[in-house]
């Protein structure tokens, strides 16, 4: 309250003071017979000087920022491709900083130098084709160089990764990252979002995960955390239940949706090739930290569960959006281990990081994953200590809510019939 009051008083006083000042100013203008649109030589000179002063402080500020922070506040590039990026970035910065200084200086200097002077008329100079040609061609040539160099780096950054590249998948959801390593075979197992269950968050596709997803869709889970089609129908068909219209509509929609999803799952199950199981089962799922091996090429693929996120590795100069319904990819070769980088950054607590860089909801700013770049031996040891998907998923079979279908509900066999 008091804060509001003070703010109000300050504003009112400010306006009153300004109004008084203006009054005085207007009176004196009137006395001297000066009109508002007549800019006096004194005012003109003052503003011309201010233009020079401003330029000076502007440049000082710029140079101070450059000296203090450099353009790489995040340190040298820590990946092989990133070094190329930095080289190009440096070159482009040199070019644009030169242009920035020359043109801004000319602008402010002209603003200062050519102010109105008694007896000097402006120079009537409407055009000069040669000059104009010059400053069309020179930028065009400089830009051609920039484009050619840029596309060279872009092509090498986006070309396919080599066969030997280690495949890792990064799975994004509000608001964290999960990594999946391709395992022994260096092949990432198949997935489909419809297979998502609490036990299979990444929705990997194996015979067992398909069965489990179908079962859960139909019958839910014994612990009551998932409501299956069967239970929904039972509730809706029970004449004793009375629902408010919104709930009813929601439940009916849910039922429709789940029935459609179930049908798709059953189709998927029918098409499933058992050979794919192995590809998924040897995958390793890893939360919290992403471990990478130094000087190994990685091909990362990205998935999103809910909304668009962006996998941003500022230190590796790598970034790619993660898009629901689309698999995106990038390749990257870390060049320094975390330990080496700590030395380079002179910061013993430094860590590489993977940040989310596309607005994705309330905790967007917290959505990150620490990245550790290991030496080959550390990496091997770390990888050995991890369980595969098989170990984790097959360890605890899921219990369905109802073992025997209730009367009048659809069984998997029925669903299969419907589809045919």
């Amino acid at each position, binding site marked *: 309250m008091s804060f509001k009051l003070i703010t109000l008083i300050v504003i009112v006083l400010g306006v009153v003071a300004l109004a008084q000042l203006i009054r005085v100013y207007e009176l004196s203008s009137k006395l001297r017979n000066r009109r508002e649109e007549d800019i006096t030589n004194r005012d003109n000179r003052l503003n011309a000087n201010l233009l020079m002063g401003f330029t000076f402080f502007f440049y000082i500020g710029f140079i101070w920022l450059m000296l203090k922070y450099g353009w790489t*506040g995040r340190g040298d590039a820590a990946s092989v491709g990133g070094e190329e*990026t930095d080289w190009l970035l440096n070159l482009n910065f040199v070019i644009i900083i030169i242009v920035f200084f020359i043109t801004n200086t000319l602008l402010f200097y*002209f603003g200062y130098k*050519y102010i109105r002077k008694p007896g000097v008329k402006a120079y*009537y*100079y409407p055009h000069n084709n040669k000059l104009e040609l010059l400053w069309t061609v020179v930028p065009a040539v400089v830009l051609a160089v920039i484009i050619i160099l840029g596309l060279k780096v872009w092509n090498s950054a986006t070309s396919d990764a080599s066969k030997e590249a280690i495949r890792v998948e990064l799975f994004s959801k509000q608001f964290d990252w999960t990594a999946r390593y391709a395992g022994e075979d260096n092949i990432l197992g198949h997935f489909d979002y419809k297979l998502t269950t609490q036990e299979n968050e990444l929705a990997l596709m194996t015979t067992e995960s398909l069965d489990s997803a179908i079962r859960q869709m139909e019958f839910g889970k014994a612990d009551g955390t998932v409501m299956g089609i069967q239970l929904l129908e039972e509730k809706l068909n029970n004449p004793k239940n009375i629902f408010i219209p919104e709930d009813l509509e929601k439940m009916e929609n849910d039922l429709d949706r789940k029935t459609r999803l179930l049908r798709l799952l059953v189709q998927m199950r029918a098409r499933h090739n058992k050979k794919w199981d192995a590809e998924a089962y040897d995958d390793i799922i890893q939360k919290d930290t992403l471990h990478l091996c130094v000087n190994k090429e990685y091909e990362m693929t990205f998935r999103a569960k809910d909304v668009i996120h962006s996998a941003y590795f500022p230190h590796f100069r790598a970034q790619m959006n993660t898009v629901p319904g689309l698999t995106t990819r990038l390749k990257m070769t870390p060049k320094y281990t975390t330990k080496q980088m700590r030395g380079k950054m002179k910061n013993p607590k*430094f860590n590489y990081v993977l940040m989310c860089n596309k607005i994705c*909801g309330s905790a967007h700013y917290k959505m990150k994953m620490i990245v550790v770049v290991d030496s080959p031996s550390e990496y091997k040891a770390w990888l050995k200590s991890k369980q595969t998907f098989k170990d984790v998923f097959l360890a605890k079979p899921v219990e369905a809510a109802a073992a025997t279908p209730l009367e009048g509900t659809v069984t998997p066999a029925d669903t299969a019939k419907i589809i045919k």
Partner: protein
Amino acid sequence: MGALAHEAHGHHGAHDHHEHHEEGFVSKYIFSMDHKMIGKQYLLTAVFMGVVAMLLSILFRIQLAWPGESSDFLSMFLGETWAPGGVLKENMYLGLVTIHGTIMVFFLLTGGLSGTFSNILIPLQIGARDMASGFLNMLSYWMFFLSSMIMLCSLFIETGPAMAGWTIYPPLSALPQAIEGSGLGMTMWLVSMAIFIASSLLGSLNYIVTILNLRTAGMKMTRLPLTVWAFFVTAVLGVLSFPVLLSAALLLLMDRSAGTSFYLSDIIVGGEMLDNHGGSPLLYQHLFWFLGHPEVYIVLLPALGLSSEIIATNSRKPIFGYRAMIGSILAIGFLSFIVWGHHMFITGMNPFLGSVFVFTTLLIAIPSAVKVFNYLTTLWRGSLVLTPAMLFAIGLVSTFITGGVTGIILADSALDIAIHDTYFVVAHFHIVMGMSAVFGMFAGVYHWFPKMYGRMLNTRLGYAHFWITIVGAYGVFFPMHFVGLAGAPRRYYDYSVYGEFDTNSYEMIMDLNVIVTVFAIIAAIGQGFFLFNFFYSIFRGPKAVQNPWKSNTLEWTTPVEHMHGNWPGAIPEVHRWPYDYSKPGYEEDFVPQDVPLKEGEEEETH
């Protein structure tokens, strides 16, 4: 065509018996069909929206500089709902950023800037009695007003305003389960924008038709002031690109409420597995940026047009390379349609497509450079009068350079990988678009205020305003380059997360954030000088003379007192281009467009 047609036009409307007709308050000030009044209505609405958007930015800047600290200022404006204990809520932070961006880009710089000046200047500068259709023009303004109000109301609803950023990328904007602002707030955003687009289309069509058909005798296209050229190309861009945004918004509305899957595929959100399949979030981005990039030039071109006029007038020199200036405007207009992909380099779009967009985007830098050099040459050996308008126009050229050169870095897809969606981008577009266009708008207001209100703005307050604004605004946006190069993503609620992995960057970002916020507060307070000057002078400023800046264009041949039909007698005929300043052979240093050529005088064919 010629003068006859215009005379006919001047008299055909039922409301147009201007010589002997007292108007009621409502038809004069509210449902006016007079282009000058409509222009002023646009301006007032835009000033109001601009102040709101600026306030929103101060609110979230406070959070960025002092994250988690309680602020009286925040609780004063946001109350316990959105700032419990004076600390901004995460969701509301995103809501503020979203509405700030939306208002600034669409309501201030699109509706406000070209709405105000196209309306006021097109008929006056081409020598027409009014817009081609006064009624559609009025409709356009009132739809703009309505959409502004809907957008503002969305700030006050229970689930908060839209929170998905001004670009409202789905799925975030499509799924209320993903963020609360994507419920009613987003619906209001979409409805407001749909109305805004309709308004903008009505306006633009009117501008185009007026410019093509209602020019006075002798006003060839190559004798048009550059302002009118800029408004013309802007209107064409708007007509061609805004409908695409409308379709993007409609598809999004359908995904939200009709169960379609244009943008949605394979999504699990809030524990619910959706059965949408086959849509693509990238489709939305293509549609959005197909508008979005031309949009940035829709914002910028009018500002460049205004500053061309102001710089020529106050340098007392012809604009250098008039034809090249027109050529650049046209080239920029054309190219702006084939560069949208530079916003999508790392969305998973095909890399080869990316290369094409690199090429086209960097091409745009050429006409932009030509414009800059032409401005510089116009100043060279001029006889400058540094009015507040002139200072703002010079400031515009500076920000156009400073922001333009960083565009070259961003347009290089290989480099964009490292800085996309960081504060570097925020710095780029605020300087090149935000500052330039706002400077252009201020320049325009200072220069044409006498024409709009028949009074003069106070010059000294104008100077104070300019210097605080340029220092404040550069102080805000220049350090952001460094924040971005340090890798700081945009749209983060709290950068102290950096403390968890990189203490060096953490210190740098937190320090710079404080500097930025302090400058932002200074700049915001500086706008008080403008607001005061503006409203005070409307009522009490000294009376203006007919042609205070000794300018050549036709608007200065109209009487100070506004009247329907603009000229009391016949519309003046045009005999020359608008830039005969300091022409050898003339006593005065300006020769208005309606002055016939002297015997033996050559017309400048530029």
